[in-house]
């Protein structure tokens, strides 16, 4: 369930606007039951990670700048202060040279051109 919570939370942050359970379900790649999405949203709301308001018969949810977000900020600030950040953790991607960047753009164009 932890992984689904992450996926839902990530989607709400990405959306940038309040989403109803139906909206969350449409945006997720997987085929999730409506009730599952509702349960996850309610749990995240109870944890204080989301805020909500009534939208017709359902609630619309959006991420709150919560304790967890503040903790994440503190964590990031601490890590940025340490001189060798890459020793403590692994960044998703590194820096690129100009040559690498051109090559990657070409590959991306090729991948996007595929059906």
């Amino acid at each position: 369930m932890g992984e689904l919570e992450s996926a839902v939370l990530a989607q709400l942050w990405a959306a940038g606007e309040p989403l109803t359970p139906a909206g969350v379900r449409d945006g997720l790649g997987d085929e999730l039951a409506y009730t599952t999405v509702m349960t996850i949203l309610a749990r995240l709301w109870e944890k204080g990670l989301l805020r909500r308001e009534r939208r017709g018969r359902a609630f619309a949810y959006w991420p709150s700048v919560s304790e967890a977000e503040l903790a994440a900020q503190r964590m990031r600030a601490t890590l940025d202060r340490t001189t060798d950040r890459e020793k403590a953790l692994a960044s998703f991607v590194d820096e690129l040279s100009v040559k690498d960047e051109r090559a990657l753009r070409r590959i991306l164009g090729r991948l996007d051109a595929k059906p």
Partner: protein
Amino acid sequence: MIAALVLPALAALVVGTVAAPPHRRLHPSAGARALAVVAASVALGAYAAATTLAVGFLSSVPWLSEHLSWCMRLARTHDDIPAVVGLPSVVAVAAMTGGLLRAGGRARQSMVPGRPTGELLVVDDGRPDAYAVPGRPGHIVVTAGMLRLLEPMEREVLLAHERSHLRHGHHRYLAVAALATAVVPVLGFVTRRLRLAVERWADEDAAAAVGDRELVARTIIRAALATRNLGAQPSLALGRVGVPARVEALLNPAPAPPFGPPSLAVGAGVAGLAIVAGSVLQVHHLFAFAAHVCGVG
């Protein structure tokens, strides 16, 4: 005796330098394990050899020999160590110990306070960034900017990639390499290869999780292009072989499974190397030392 100490350490260093080139058929998890063992073996072997030579040399110095008499008892079958070997050994042990202490201090510094619940922590920041913070439990820290940049399936790739780092404890591999490099600085190249190997490992796990290698390649490219101006150390980063190598590997067929024949072959080779390097440790000295401490010897 000197040859018996120096040769295994040198052999381990040479083999370690030549070996473990990332191979397309080799699963990156096998590569990462092999590199960590190579780094640890070479560092341990070099440290043990230098320490034995240094102690042997110091025990021949008149005033010191009284205080090191127990050591002389252990070493009585050994030849005298000439100053031309002994003095550099003493210096080397001091330098290695200093490097080890400094590396340990840095590792303590990077501990992060404050652990909220929940796997995913989102930072409300428009600049795209994402990484794994190891711990119990570990966390995935992602900025809102990164989440907005990616499409739904690409977000799954990102989370699966960081989850792999946390699940397999990749930071421990990097810590081993960092300590080994602190002892034997020429091992820096092993650290660089290991960093690539654990990223490749997480990429392969993400590809298995979403079932689409091209999707993982796409996600990495899009994230890399978006974050290209973020870091503060471009000179360091230019030398890294990160994203292009990872993308190329993902656009090629999947490697052999983690415990397939190529991985087992490399594992056997690395185990042999570890034994050669370990022979420098001379376990009988430890027994003799323990006997001395316990008053038996």
